[in-house]
């Protein structure tokens, strides 16, 4: 074989092959680029139920799973998303894990479908005159999944366990910190929680440090659920592999990264008994929509990539669509400690310069509601504002001209969670509006969520000038938004907002007995805050779910509540 001859004779061939290869690569790149664009039609950082492929770091963008057919049995199959962080009530602090824990465990009180606090294991309770002592009377027929009866001692044990520093509960202060003695025990200053007393087997007395109208609402969170001492102590740190709860469903099987199967608790004490034999959560995320359309799921969340065809009234899917509120608000936050946002006029000017409606219509395809209030619709105390800040470029320019930064607006950095070459579309669009309407030079800085949370954690030292965050209700009370985010002494007062008048109203509301009067006070506080524009309320995200017509009673509440007991399958 003569190499030189071959090379020479095939020189034309080399050219052709090279050109062909370049053409092939070019075609693949262009075609791939188009596909890639189609497959990532934007993401909604304010929504918590849209796992798009590669959308968020840490979310496994797996293709879909094909669960076993149900064979006509009353089995519900739902998309499970990623693995829950934990199934331990003392450790739950996110909705993903909360969904399972709320079905497996239960506590003294719970939320009904309308998100009202209702009796659960406690059939009734009394509140003392100083409104600091709650006496709970427990139902007598409540049993753990293994058949052991639940008594007041079990509740005492469960609260002591959360307050035990060795439990390392991330929610102890937030949800049980009002109980006298919990913080002392957490900080190793007491061996026992003095505020929890067992009166008899079925009577439990809880004392809190000050009258708090939202205390019962906090007890609906998993942190306050009852756990079985034997189960916890024998199981060690991984006791939730076989949790012994009291809820309407029990854990039948959990294969990490694959599936979580809940089975009906035949001995459930509640009035509404579970009707489904099994609920299968298919983990591994991905295009759950395909599975739903193939009949492999009974219900599925809708992502922004499918929203248009699902919303089309002529689509058969449209009849299966549910849209509901999710009790959350996305905010653009101005740091009042950082120029130019120490001047309220600049903040107001920015608020008037952003056409929120347009961003929601175009970038989010109208999925969330445009926000003009801090409280989301559906929250008690929600009211339409008297004179909301709406898009008004002329007024924005005028406000900026009146501010002390007129004509000398410094460069501004907007920090947002994200990674990659292009920042979230919504932020880019809004930065463009600020430039067009005010001539503001705003640059975008992206950061990962670990660094972001770490930075905004201490409002006094937070270097970010402006940033965007979402806040979802922990419990259904306006206190959860207004007091926590805008009281000047609050550690989650990201805007470093300080208004003595607002603080006074919040103080009054905290001790007001009458709910109507209380909500009125919160409304007044909200009006004052909105006028000062420490934040721009941007959007209220909504739940979009498709459910097969043969599934009855499916609900998608804005809060984590035990909801699967309402569901039945009627073919």
């Amino acid at each position, binding site marked *: 074989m003569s190499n030189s001859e071959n090379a020479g004779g095939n020189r034309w061939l080399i050219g052709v092959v090279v050109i062909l290869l370049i053409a092939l690569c070019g075609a693949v790149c262009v075609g791939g680029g188009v596909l890639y664009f189609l497959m990532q039609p934007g993401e909604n950082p304010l929504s918590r139920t849209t796992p798009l492929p590669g959308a968020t770091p840490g979310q496994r963008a797996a293709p879909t799973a094909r669960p076993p057919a149900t064979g006509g049995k009353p089995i519900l199959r739902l998309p499970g998303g990623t693995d829950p962080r934990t199934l331990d009530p003392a450790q739950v602090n996110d909705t993903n894990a909360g969904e399972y824990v709320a079905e497996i465990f239960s506590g003294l009180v719970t939320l009904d479908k309308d998100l009202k606090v209702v009796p659960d294991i406690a059939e009734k309770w009394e509140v003392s005159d100083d409104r600091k002592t709650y006496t709970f009377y427990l139902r007598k027929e409540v049993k753990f999944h293994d058949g052991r009866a639940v008594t007041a001692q079990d509740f005492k044990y469960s609260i002591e366990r959360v307050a035990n520093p060795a439990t390392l509960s991330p929610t102890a202060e937030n949800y049980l910190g009002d109980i006298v003695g919990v913080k002392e025990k957490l900080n190793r200053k007491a061996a026992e929680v003095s505020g929890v007393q067992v009166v008899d087997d079925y009577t439990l007395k809880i004392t809190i440090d000050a009258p708090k109208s939202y205390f019962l609402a906090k007890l609906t969170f998993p942190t306050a659920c009852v756990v079985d001492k034997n189960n916890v102590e024998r199981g060690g740190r991984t006791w939730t592999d076989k949790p012994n709860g009291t809820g309407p469903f029990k854990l039948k099987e959990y294969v990490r990264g694959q599936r979580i199967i809940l089975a009906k608790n035949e001995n459930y004490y509640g009035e509404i008994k579970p009707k489904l034999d099994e609920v299968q959560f298919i983990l591994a995320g991905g295009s759950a929509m395909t599975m739903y359309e193939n009949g492999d799921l009974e219900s599925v969340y809708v992502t922004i990539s499918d929203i248009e065809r699902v919303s089309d009234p002529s689509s058969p899917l449209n009849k299966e669509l549910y849209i509901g509120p999710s009790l959350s608000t996305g905010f653009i936050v101005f740091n009042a400690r950082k120029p130019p946002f120490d001047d309220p006029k600049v903040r107001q000017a920015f608020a008037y310069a952003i056409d929120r409606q347009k961003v929601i219509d175009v970038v989010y395809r109208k999925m969330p509601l445009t926000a003009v209030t801090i409280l989301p619709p559906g929250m008690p105390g929600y009211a339409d504002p008297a004179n909301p800040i709406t898009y008004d470029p002329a007024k924005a320019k005028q406000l900026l001209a009146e501010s002390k930064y007129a004509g000398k607006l410094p460069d501004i950095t907007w920090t947002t969670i994200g990674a990659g070459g292009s920042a979230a579309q919504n932020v880019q669009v809004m930065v463009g509006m600020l430039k067009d309407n005010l001539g503001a030079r705003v640059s975008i800085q992206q950061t990962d969520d670990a660094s972001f949370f770490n930075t905004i954690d201490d409002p006094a030292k937070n270097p970010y000038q402006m940033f965007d*965050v979402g806040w979802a209700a922990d419990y259904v009370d306006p206190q959860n938004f207004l007091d926590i985010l805008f009281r000047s002494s609050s550690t989650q007062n990201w805007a470093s907002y300080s208004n003595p008048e607002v603080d006074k109203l919040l103080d009054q509301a905290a001790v007001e007995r009458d709910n109507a009067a209380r909500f009125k006070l919160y409304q007044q506080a909200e009006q004052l805050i909105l006028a000062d524009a420490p934040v721009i309320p941007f959007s209220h995200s909504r739940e979009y779910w498709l459910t097969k017509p043969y599934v009855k009673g499916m609900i998608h509440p804005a809060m984590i509540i035990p909801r699967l007991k309402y569901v039945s399958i009627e073919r």
Partner: protein
Amino acid sequence: MGAFVIRRLLWLPVLLFFISLITFGLGIYGPGDPIQVLLGLRANPETIERLRREYGFDQPFHIQYLNYVTNALQGNFGYSLVKYRDQPVGALIAHALPVTIQLNLVAIFLGLTIGVPLGLLAGLKRDTWIDLIIRGLVIAGISLPIIFLNPVLTFIFSRRHDFVLAAANIKFSIGPLLPMVQGYWDGIFSSKVLLPAFVESLGVIAVLTRQMRAGMIEVLSEDYIRTARAKGLRERIVVVRHAMRNALIPIATILGLMIGGLVAGSFLVENWFGVPGVGALAFDALFSRDYYITMALVLLIAVAYVLSNLLVDLTYGLLDPRIRKA
């Protein structure tokens, strides 16, 4: 020989010390911390302070490091802080490691069965159009980023594609070949393994093809091949018995080095295709600042590489006594 192995193994703890020190330092002094990720926006300063104290994160660096090392030497690599809260790190890795090893073995197997014959062919047909096409494909294969290949493959296999031949009035459709992209990880004997293994094998194919081609070209120019041909041996015997065998030796070395890589999973491939392996676990751990998982994985991968390099050196030593003394 024994002294050589012992001398090399004595370096291992020194290496692990530096690797663990750097990784630990990056975890502690890098931006963000696991408590903050765990608590998210609901971070209550009292809670942050308490959890830091209880976990010992408020201790000076050297105390934290010593505590970690002491526990690790006793086989306790800690518990997941965020992502799989309270699960022992050892158990999480024991769950993920076999998956990654299996996937990588399939990838290497694919790489061998595709790469070696391609390289052989390219070497034999040097500078012909066959060689050109093979080399072009290899370059294309390693140049296409995984982050681009993954969605394209998913698109191809998860959808139905309709084709129309207008002239013949024929309509036909292909797919969706769902089993390949649907279903959670089912082990390596399901079709689910094909796409991730294929993507991961591209690098292996490229390396092996190029090595095999170069080896063949080199060996074919050796004198003994000319002698063999001159003896009148059939070309097949010359190629298979004399040339190919010698060209395969460097391939064995490369494979030896790949053994260390077996335990390291690909972030991009495992995450995209939902393979619950080491890469996916490391990705989760890194983004949620789950220190202890990251530490254990880094150490594991370091040990694997050190041992596989040692293994390769040992085989050299067996082949060449000069290296043993060096």
